[in-house]
C-alpha cells in the first residue's frame, strides 16, 4: 500500500470534491461582495496554478508571469471598453484626451467582442511561445531565466506607462460598463460571474492535471530534475520547456481576462514586479509540486490579507515575509508536503518496512 497522496484516483476525487464544494457556494451565499471577492480569489488561484505548472512541474521559475496576465487583462479591458463605444462615438475618452483623433490600428479588432476575446488570449500565448522559444533554445535556464522574465516584465511595465495615448498610462483602462457576451451582461457581482470564473478554473486545472500525468508531463518533470540527462536521451529540452511555459502563460492570460471582467479595470499595476513575485509566493507556500496546493496557497494568503490584513495592519507584511522565509527554509515543497508526509506516515504504519517513496531522490509530483 503506497502513500494515498500519490494515488491518482484519490487525487482526482479530492479535486472533484474541492470544486463541487466551490460550485455550491452561490447556493448558500447571498452576499454580492463576498461572491465577487471569492471570484477574484479564483483568479489568483488560476495564477498560482499556472506558476505551479511552470515552476513545480517544469522547473522554470517565472518571475514575469505578470506579462501574460497583464496582456490578457489589457486585451479584455480593450474589448470591454470598445463595447461601450458606438458608431457616433467610436474613440475611448482617454484617447481623445491624449489628442488622438482616430482609433489606433491595434485597437480596431477589439471592436468585435469575439475577436477581442480571442486576441486577449492569443497575444499573450503567442508572446510566451516566441519569448520562451528564443530563450530556451539559447539554453537560458534557472535563475537566469528568472532574471530575464523580470527584465521583460519591467520592459512591458515601462512601455505601457509611457505610451499613454494608446494604453491609458498609469491610469489604465476603466471600461464603464460590465462585459456583455451575446447581448447578456455578466454582472461582476452575480453568481454568473462567479461560476464563469470557477468554470474556467476547473477547465484549466483539469488540463494542467492531465498534462502532468501524460508522458509529456513526465518528460518535463525529468527536465526539471536533470535537463542534461534528458537532452542526452534525445529529447528536445527547449521544445518541452517552451510548451509548458506557453501553456502556463495561457492560463495566466485567462486569469487576466477574468480579473478585468470582475473589477472592470486594468492598470500597469497588474504588471508590477511585486505582483508577479507574490504569485510565486502563493505557489511556494501552498506547495508548488501540487496544483491544488498552489491554488490553496493563493486562497489562503489573499484571504488572510483581506481579513487579517486590517487586524494586523502594521505587521501584516512582517508576518507574511516571516512565514514565507520559514516555508522556504524548512518546507521547500510548501504546506502540501505536510499533508504528503502525514499521509505517508499513515501508509507506512501497517508495515514496518521502509517507506516506498521516502528515500527516492526525484520528488514525485503530488
Amino acid at each position, binding site marked *: 500500500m503506497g502513500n494515498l497522496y500519490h494515488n491518482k484516483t484519490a487525487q482526482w476525487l479530492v479535486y472533484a470534491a474541492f470544486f463541487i464544494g466551490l460550485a455550491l457556494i452561490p447556493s448558500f451565499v447571498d452576499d454580492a461582495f463576498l461572491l465577487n471577492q471569492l471570484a477574484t480569489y479564483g483568479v489568483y488561484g488560476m495564477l498560482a496554478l499556472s506558476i505551479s505548472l511552470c515552476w513545480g512541474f517544469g522547473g522554470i521559475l517565472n518571475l514575469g508571469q505578470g506579462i501574460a496576465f497583464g496582456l490578457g487583462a489589457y486585451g479584455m479591458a480593450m474589448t470591454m471598453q470598445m463595447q461601450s463605444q458606438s458608431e457616433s462615438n467610436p474613440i475611448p475618452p482617454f484617447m481623445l484626451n491624449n489628442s488622438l483623433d482616430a482609433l489606433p490600428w491595434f485597437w480596431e479588432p477589439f471592436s468585435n467582442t469575439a475577436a477581442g476575446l480571442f486576441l486577449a488570449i492569443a497575444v499573450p500565448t503567442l508572446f510566451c511561445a516566441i519569448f520562451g522559444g528564443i*530563450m530556451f533554445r539559447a539554453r537560458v535556464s534557472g535563475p*537566469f531565466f528568472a532574471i530575464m522574465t*523580470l*527584465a521583460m516584465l519591467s520592459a512591458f511595465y515601462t*512601455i505601457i506607462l509611457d505610451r499613454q495615448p494608446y494604453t491609458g498610462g498609469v491610469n489604465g483602462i476603466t471600461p464603464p460598463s460590465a462585459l456583455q457576451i451575446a447581448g447578456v451582461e455578466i454582472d461582476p457581482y452575480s453568481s454568473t460571474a462567479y461560476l464563469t470564473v470557477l468554470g474556467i478554473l476547473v477547465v484549466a486545472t483539469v488540463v494542467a492535471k492531465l498534462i502532468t500525468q501524460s508522458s509529456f508531463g513526465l518528460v518535463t518533470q525529468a527536465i526539471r530534475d536533470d535537463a542534461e540527462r534528458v537532452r542526452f536521451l534525445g529529447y528536445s529540452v527547449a521544445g518541452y520547456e517552451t510548451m509548458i511555459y506557453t501553456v502556463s502563460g495561457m492560463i495566466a492570460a485567462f486569469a487576466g481576462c477574468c480579473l478585468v471582467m470582475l473589477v472592470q479595470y486594468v492598470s500597469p499595476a497588474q504588471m508590477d*514586479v511585486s505582483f508577479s513575485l507574490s504569485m510565486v509566493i502563493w505557489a511556494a507556500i501552498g506547495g508548488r509540486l501540487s496544483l491544488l496546493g498552489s491554488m490553496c496557497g493563493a486562497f489562503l494568503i489573499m484571504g488572510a490579507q483581506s481579513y487579517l490584513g486590517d487586524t494586523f495592519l502594521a505587521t501584516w*507584511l*512582517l508576518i507574511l*515575509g516571516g512565514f514565507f*522565509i520559514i516555508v522556504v527554509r524548512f518546507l521547500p515543497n510548501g504546506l502540501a508536503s505536510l499533508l504528503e508526509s502525514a499521509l505517508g506516515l499513515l501508509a507506512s504504519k501497517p508495515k514496518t518496512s521502509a517507506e516506498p517513496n521516502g528515500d527516492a531522490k526525484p520528488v514525485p509530483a503530488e
Partner: protein
Amino acid sequence: MDIGSLLNALILGVSIASIWLIAALGLTIIYGAAGVINMAHGEFIMLGAYSSYMLQYYFGLPYLLCIPASFVIVAAVGLVLERGLIQYLYNRPLDTLLATYGVSLVLMQGVRLIFGSDPKYLAAPALFSSNISLGFASVSTFRVVILLVTALCVLGIWLLFYKTRFGVQVRAVMQNKEMAASFGINSSRIYMMTFALGAGLAGVAGSLFGVLAIVLPTMGASYVVQAFLMVVTGGGSLAGTVVASGVTGQLQSVFAFFSNDTFARFLIFVLIVVFLRFRPQGLFAQAGARR
C-alpha cells in the same frame, strides 16, 4: 544639437553609470562568490540610507562619517542574515531568491514600523550642494563624490580579491568549493565574509542615494531589478559589472537625451534581454565558476 550639450549628456552618463555600479557592486560580490540571488539587496540599500539618517539625526555624526558607519551596520545585518538563513540554502539557488524576497518584505515593513512611512531627509555638507563648471560642461559636486566613492570601492574590492590572501581564498571557493575545502580553506567562513561585504557595500550605496533623492522604506525596490540586470549582464564578475554599468549608464543618458527618460529605460531593458539571448553567460563569465 550642439556638441556642448551632448558632451554634458556623456558626462552625466558617467555619473549615472557610477550610480548603477555602486548599486550593483554588493550584489556582484554576493552573487559572484556564493551564487546567491539576493532579492533583499534593495532593502540593504534602504537600510544603509536609514542607518545614515539615524546616525545623523540622533547622534549628529557628520555625513562623511555616516558612509563608512553605514557600511559597518549593514554588513553586520548581512552577517546575521547569512548565519541565520542563507547558509542553509547554498545548494538551492532558486530558494535563496525566494527566501531573500521574504527577508526584503520583513526589512521593509520593519523599517516602516520603526521610522514611519514618511520620507526622511539626509543632510549633506553645503559644499556638496554646488556644481563644478568646466566651461563647456558642468557637473554637480555630489555626483563627483558618488563617482569617487564608487571608484574607491571598486579599487578596494579589486585589491582585496586579487592582492590579499583572503582574495585568493574567495576565488578558490568560487571556482571549486570542494577542492578549496580540501586545501584547508573554510568555505563557510568565506561565504559569510563575502555576504557581509556585499551587504556593507549596499549600505554605502544607500547612504549616497539618501542624499541624492529621498529616504523611504520603499526606496530599495527601484534599485534591485536594475542592479540584477547589471550583474547578470556582466556575468557575475567585478569587471563585468563595471563594464555593464558603464555601458548601460551611458546608453541611458544618451537615449534620454534624444528621447525621454521612460522610453530610455524601456530600450535598456529590451537591449539587455536581446544581449543575454546571444550571450547568456554575460560579458565576462568567470572561467570555471560553478553555476
